[in-house]
């Protein structure tokens, strides 16, 4: 496959449920499609899929389950048309128990096939939480987007999401070196007895085990993660600083440099539209939330 043909993957995570990951994912996918980019919106909230309802679909005829269970051979086969030109949808609904905790091979299969999709952009709507399944989809993305809302708990969760993503990446990179991986896994527990509390502490400990080259490699990997922060449901000018809070803490403790890509203003219409099962893409285009997401998409492209 030609590199130019490989789709760009934007993964939207954030740790906490209810911060608007699905809303932001849907609106971003909408704008990409409206800009003429062939886009596939994928609901990777395995076990709690609800994106199809935001697109006005009550019972999706095909879902990721059908792909994993080999009823369909490719992800293209399970893509659903939407009312928006250039925008396709892959639903994650279905048998919650089997998909909430896919095996590594199933997850790898989904990821491999994402790259084979004949499209320009893929927007992944990730589930809540920081399980390995969520983090692994987040880490394969070209743009790693973290959505948060301007409340302390959501900020903490978004920060913890970034922290866990970094440790997950480090842990996977060290899989061929058991002592190093054991150290990283130990460090993931904030109360570890080695007293490795921050990524900086961890890199210092790694230097002792594996030397400078390994530290440089890992540091480069951490820098490449560069989470893109979006603060959703902003109601007050100060709310926009939520991303800044994470930036400052992450730079100090995680040695990573998140990008604060913008804020989406709170919009009452969205709640009403979602409750009425009207496709979110029908949101009137004079909506401030709609406009905010347009600005964000332009920055991310």
């Amino acid at each position, binding site marked *: 496959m030609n590199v130019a043909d490989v789709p760009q993957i934007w993964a939207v995570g954030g740790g906490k449920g209810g911060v608007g990951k699905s809303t932001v994912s849907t609106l971003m996918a909408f704008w990409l499609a409206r800009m003429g980019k062939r886009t596939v919106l994928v609901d990777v909230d395995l076990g709690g899929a609800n994106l199809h309802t935001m697109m006005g679909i009550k019972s999706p005829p095909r879902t990721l389950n059908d792909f994993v269970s080999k009823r369909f051979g490719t992800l293209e086969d399970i893509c659903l048309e939407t009312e928006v030109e250039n925008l396709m949808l892959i639903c994650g609904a279905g048998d919650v128990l089997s998909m909430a905790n896919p095996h590594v091979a199933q997850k790898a299969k989904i990821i491999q096939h994402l790259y084979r999709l004949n499209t320009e952009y893929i927007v992944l709507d990730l589930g809540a939480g920081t399980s390995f399944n969520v983090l692994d989809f987040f880490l394969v993305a070209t743009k790693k987007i973290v959505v948060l809302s301007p409340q302390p*708990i959501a900020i903490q969760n978004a920060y913890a999401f970034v922290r866990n993503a970094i440790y997950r990446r480090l842990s996977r990179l060290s899989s061929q070196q058991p002592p190093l991986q054991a150290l990283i896994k130990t460090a993931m527990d904030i109360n570890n007895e080695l007293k490795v509390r921050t990524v900086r502490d961890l890199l210092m400990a790694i230097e002792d085990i594996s030397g400078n080259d390994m530290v440089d490699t890992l540091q480069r990997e951490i820098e490449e993660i560069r989470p893109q922060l979006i603060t959703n449901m902003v109601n007050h000018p100060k709310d926009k600083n939520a991303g800044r809070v994470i930036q400052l803490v992450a730079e100090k403790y995680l040695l990573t440099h998140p990008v604060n890509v913008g804020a989406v203003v709170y919009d009452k219409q969205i709640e009403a539209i979602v409750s009425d099962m009207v496709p979110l893409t029908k949101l009137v285009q004079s909506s401030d939330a709609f406009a905010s997401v347009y600005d964000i998409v332009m920055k991310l492209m």
Partner: protein
Amino acid sequence: MSENTDHTNDIIKGVIDGLITIESIDEFKNIIVANPDNPELLTVYAGMLEKKELYNGAASVYKKASRHFIESDMILKAIHSKIREWNVIKYSERECRSIYAALRHCDRDDVPAYHFFARMSYPELVAVMDELEPVSLGATAVVREQDDFEDELYFVVLGTLTETTYSSGHEGGAEILVEQVGENGFTGDVLPFSDDKLSLSLIEAASNVALLKLAKEDLIRVCRKYPNVEFLTMELCQSRLGKVGRKALHTIRSTTRYQVQTKVTVKIFPDEPDQSPLVLNGFTEDISMGGCCIRLGEAYWTGSGTSVIGKNVRILFSVPKVSAGVDVLGEVAWKREVSYDERTTVLIGVQFKQMTEEDFTFLKKHCYIGDGEQDMIYSLWESLMKK
């Protein structure tokens, strides 16, 4: 005489341990006649009958063995025999009331595996036992490799397992920790169910072992029908942390408190069962995995004349997006009066005792970043965002 007895005992021990194999039913019967009440011997005999496809006889001997195990308070072994009985005869309805009754009267709360089964209702016990699979392995057999998925719980019915954990030492070298899991112990780390956990240890049989395997996916299915089993599994897995776990809990309590005010309803239970519980409202001052500090509302002054320290409490946290709230049982560990804005209010410290896995997960979600990070987020929130 004494030498003969010793010799017979050696043979019986050898048969039970699998070192001596008896192929003849008549020969085995002779030993059984001399030792009719030895359930372990009966189990081996039943196994031989099963191998010879004498299923009715095998089931009857397993049943007898199970009964003897119950009489000796060896409940895990009784469960093991009962399951083997079920495996040879397909009953239309599986029945284990005698085990259930024995568990109710068995005073072995110190054994986590017993506690796990003893706290189940009868339908829960049947459902879990239905999913248990007897596994027999020879010495040195590998139960689980390091980095294999933690997809099963194993209860040790007979014999010993060793768990070897390799980790990084303080000086950068590797540390090897070897632990033994003996009879009535268990191994496996299946929680949280949503995680694909990899085993940190190599688990091998140190001797011939009889195990009861409970597959994670089967357990999840049972838990979906019987949520109490999920809670008991959580308790079981926590118990395995032992001293380390208690230490970790203590550390968490002291290091990862976070200061976000959440509205709570506190129900304080009186010592006398005929009295009504005292219901108060308040706000959390901070929460950790181990407990929380609550500032009580003014109703406390009119509603309470006695000390609340040591009382059992139920706390309902009003959490946005969690429709049912988060509901945790605990005990009041301390009480303090503080002056605030020229008014005196009461703070109580509650140590959590019981919570569902869902609630545990909720609290964990909010308490798993370090002290420094937490403080910095809160301080930046105060300076950059607080209106």
